[in-house]
């Protein structure tokens, strides 16, 4: 399998990390297990394709024609910006329009979760209108420019996924330590009522988290599509839905709401899934889709022993949390 494949697995994991860390980012402040997150992923992809289509308006950009122009190369990198913005804004809008009002009314976590399922369906349909009008319901991956560095085959998309992940991780680190709003972010995450009492504008801070979180999902969506193409030959709109469980697996394994825990979990799952997929097809001769058993199995097993995910095990400052069992924590919170 060699280095090339290892690089691919890690890059795949990085794309997953981008998507999942976005979820974790706003979960940490808003506590919404958002099933519409997958829609932001697909939104990012659609925005990327549309941006390129506009740039080549007049050429044959409908149907499979777009694949020719949408190849992931240096001159198309700019299209990641609309991908980020569109997914981020849709995410922001869903927070401001749906989740925030519900939270103000004291909706339970379960109600928020169910609302997100409704939102997911609506967004999916809207995307089908766009994809359908451009005749893009099914597409192949447009591929990416390939380089050979020290004998290793590496694509631009792979490089970008590492670079973007590093940027995102750095950005959040800077935000959290150097800016007021980042400090507020952490304050709300650890104690929402106290934070609000001390004058933090909870809405603004959460809105920022949702915007960034959705945007990260959009970036991850573009990269994931370049790597794997349409999920299982299904419509491209389903990209987010097909990856949603992997996203949740990473977020849950990392400890819902733990940004860096999620990134690490996504990288682990990326390697596990891709290695398993290769192994399954080569040695067992079964479909690689079954390889999802491995990441999901890892996640479920971890959850059974550590109900709070990786964050509950590793992180120094969270060690206290896991010691206190769930019952204790809940009883006291009231």
């Amino acid at each position: 399998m060699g280095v090339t494949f290892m690089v691919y697995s890690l890059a795949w994991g990085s794309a997953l990390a981008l998507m999942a860390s976005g979820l974790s980012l706003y979960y940490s402040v808003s506590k919404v297990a958002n099933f519409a997150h997958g829609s932001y992923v697909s939104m990012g992809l659609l925005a990327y394709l549309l941006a390129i289509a506009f740039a080549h308006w007049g050429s044959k950009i409908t149907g499979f024609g777009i694949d020719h122009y949408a190849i992931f190369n240096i001159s198309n990198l700019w299209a990641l910006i609309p991908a980020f913005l569109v997914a981020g804004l849709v995410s922001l809008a869903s927070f401001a329009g749906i989740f925030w009002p519900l939270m103000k009314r004291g909706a339970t976590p379960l109600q928020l979760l169910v609302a997100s399922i409704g939102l997911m369906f609506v967004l999916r349909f809207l995307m089908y209108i766009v994809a359908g009008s451009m005749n893009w319901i099914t597409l192949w991956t447009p591929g990416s420019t390939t380089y050979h560095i020290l004998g290793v085959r590496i694509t631009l998309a792979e490089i970008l996924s590492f670079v973007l992940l590093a940027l995102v991780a750095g950005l959040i680190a800077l935000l959290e330590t150097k800016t007021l709003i980042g400090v507020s972010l952490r304050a709300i995450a650890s104690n929402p009522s106290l934070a609000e009492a001390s004058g933090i504008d909870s809405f603004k801070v959460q809105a920022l988290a949702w915007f960034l979180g959705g945007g990260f999902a959009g970036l991850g969506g573009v990269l994931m599509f370049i790597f794997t193409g349409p999920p299982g030959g299904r419509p491209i709109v389903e990209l987010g839905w097909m990856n949603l469980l992997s996203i949740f697996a990473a977020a849950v394994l990392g400890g819902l709401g733990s940004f860096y825990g999620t990134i690490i979990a996504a990288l682990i799952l990326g390697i596990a899934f891709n290695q398993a997929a290769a192994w399954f097809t080569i040695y067992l001769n079964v479909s690689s889709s079954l390889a999802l058993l491995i990441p999901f199995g890892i996640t479920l097993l971890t959850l059974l022993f550590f109900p709070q995910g990786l964050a509950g095990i590793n992180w120094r400052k969270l060690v206290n949390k896991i010691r206190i069992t769930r019952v204790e924590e809940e009883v006291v919170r009231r």
Partner: protein
Amino acid sequence: MRKVSDEVLIVDNVHKYFGGIRAVDGVSLKVPRGSIVGLIGPNGSGKTTLFNTISGFYKPNKGRIMFDGRDITGLPPHRIYKLGLIRTFQNPRVWRSLTVFENVLGSAKDQRGENMLLAMIHATWASQEKKLAKEALHWIDFTGLAPVDTRFAPEISGGQMKLLEVARALMGSAKMLLLDEPAAGVNPVMARKLFGGIERLRSEMGLTFLIVEHRLEILFDYVDYVYVMHRGRIVAEGKPEEVAENPVVHDIYLGG
């Protein structure tokens, strides 16, 4: 033969830590059968945590808890309830989709109809249910909740919720009750009535009480003995009038 001691509850050197916080740090106390014992101390001194530990919600890091001659350390809450030790919550926890009446009724012990299969056979539980309903109405009258007994639990006032907590505990055929600030938010007249009721329960039914309460002027009129907690430890104990004069207690309450 089980050894029945005079002390119905014995807490022996119990520790409970949350990470670095020593919320309960070596508490020992004894509650004689049929007594009313007070547990006081400033906010954050670990009283609620001690209650949570005794009632099985927390497992102590160290120490032993004996109830009625039996070691109950580490038993789950519902088992401790079955032995006759019932607690209330400082911040009322009511069942919001049930009425006040059902909140009380549902707290009864050993309901046959709670068995999934027997529930389908009406005849096996109907007569017990009727008997329990009468008992529930009795405790509702006792706690003065009758005017609101068909309201859904979240609709009643905070003080009434505290009384509901007490009514539910009484419904569970307890031998001993752990009441966490039962009169918080209840007006002084009702509060005195409640404590009068507690005294009656003790003399008529032989119930034992361990009560956390901040309104010392009321509490001290009814309790036999008082423990004072501070920073997770018992710092003073004695008869109410002794404790009231204890300089240590004054320091704690004035110094926060």
